[in-house]
């Protein structure tokens, strides 16, 4: 009786070994930049902040409620990752920040990823050295209103635009073709979608070509 019970118990333990099936995450969009290369080829520019850089230090200018919008954006993107690939913290000193969020337009001529929502617009510089493929932080995010402050919808617009631009700063260097995604060029939705999440996760588990230079 005892031995038979033990055999059943051991059998149950052996049977109780199995893994949940991981999702395929097939529904995603292209996040990497493709640049013409010598000889008619194409360079693939892919970037993800390394785990040694986490948590990223993010500074936001104290205007247009940018610190609050940036905090919201950090939380949105942290929630998309399962394994701590991105963690961010708002810092009070811009010195040494990895990402700087300011109000205003991006300087002309720089390599920027723009976005235009209804009431505001944003841009993120991706200052990558074309020869060395080195990226020197801080990245700059620019957010500005298209109408006077206080216009209905501006607060929501600043929130989603800051989150959209932070997505670029995290390594999503292209826009989604789907308006249901936060990373659509003229974003409407207020939070990352499942496709945004799949894309971000892929960006952090795919070999990168752009290295960080400090």
């Amino acid at each position, binding site marked *: 009786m*005892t031995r038979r*019970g*033990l055999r059943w*118990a*051991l059998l*149950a*333990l052996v049977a*109780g*070994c*199995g*893994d*949940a*099936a*991981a*999702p*395929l*995450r097939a529904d995603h969009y292209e996040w990497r930049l493709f640049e013409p290369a010598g000889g008619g080829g194409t360079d693939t520019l892919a970037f993800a902040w390394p*785990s040694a850089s*986490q948590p990223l230090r993010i500074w936001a200018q104290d205007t247009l409620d940018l610190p609050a919008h940036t905090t919201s954006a950090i939380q949105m993107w*942290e*929630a998309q*990752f*399962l*394994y*701590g*690939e991105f963690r961010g913290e708002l810092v009070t000193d811009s010195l040494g920040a990895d990402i700087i969020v300011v109000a205003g337009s991006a300087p002309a001529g720089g390599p920027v990823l723009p976005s235009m929502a209804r009431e505001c617009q944003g841009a993120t510089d991706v200052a990558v050295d074309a020869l060395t493929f080195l990226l020197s932080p801080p990245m700059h995010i620019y957010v500005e209103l298209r109408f006077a402050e206080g216009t209905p919808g501006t607060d929501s617009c600043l929130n989603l635009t800051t989150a959209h631009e932070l997505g670029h700063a995290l390594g999503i260097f292209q826009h989604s073709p789907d308006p249901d995604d936060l990373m659509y060029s003229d974003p409407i939705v207020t939070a990352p979608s*499942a496709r945004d*999440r799949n894309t971000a*996760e*892929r960006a*952090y*588990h*795919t070999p990168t070509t752009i290295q960080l230079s400090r």
Partner: protein
Amino acid sequence: MMHPFPVACAAVLYLGLPGIAQAQQPDLYFQLGAVWAAPLLHDNIAGQEITTQQSIAPMVRIGAGLPVAPKVGAGLEAAVAWGGYSADYAGSSTDLGNITTLSFLANLNGPIAQRLRWRVGIGMIGTIPGEDAGIFLQGGSWNALFSAGVDYYVPLKPKFDLMIGARADTHTLTPGQTTLVGFSGTQWVPRVSLGVGLSLKRVANP
């Protein structure tokens, strides 16, 4: 909000202990030890394997029971273990913080040989993260737990035995966030634990 199951189990243990202590052959024990668990989750993103793994965790185990038949006892056992967990991929490990497991088992036990007893149980285990993030973004989870093990008793004092307990158990793990992002099927997490402590009752020879 507290899950009703651990509250009920704790209440049963608390209310039942005085009666068990007064019984003719009470089975009361306390152990300190460690528990090792198999990975909490395996994932594959764009061909990259990711393993979420608990560290070996210190553990405290208490139990109480009574004989219910000539060679069979029944009891309740509670254990708490706490340690870190991490995600391992691309040759590096990312610290994800701390995790506490709290388990309650209803068990049966009986003799195998002199000083050696078997113990099998069924119950529930709570996996409680230190921070609601990552796979535990929506908090921890309570899942079914199945356990089997042996206890070895060494006479130590007139009222106490030294007790060495080994357990192998397995439980399902279903954090809400993993379901949300598309994991399917059941994740089983086998564990092995070893504890050393004191038992109030010297086990009668079988």
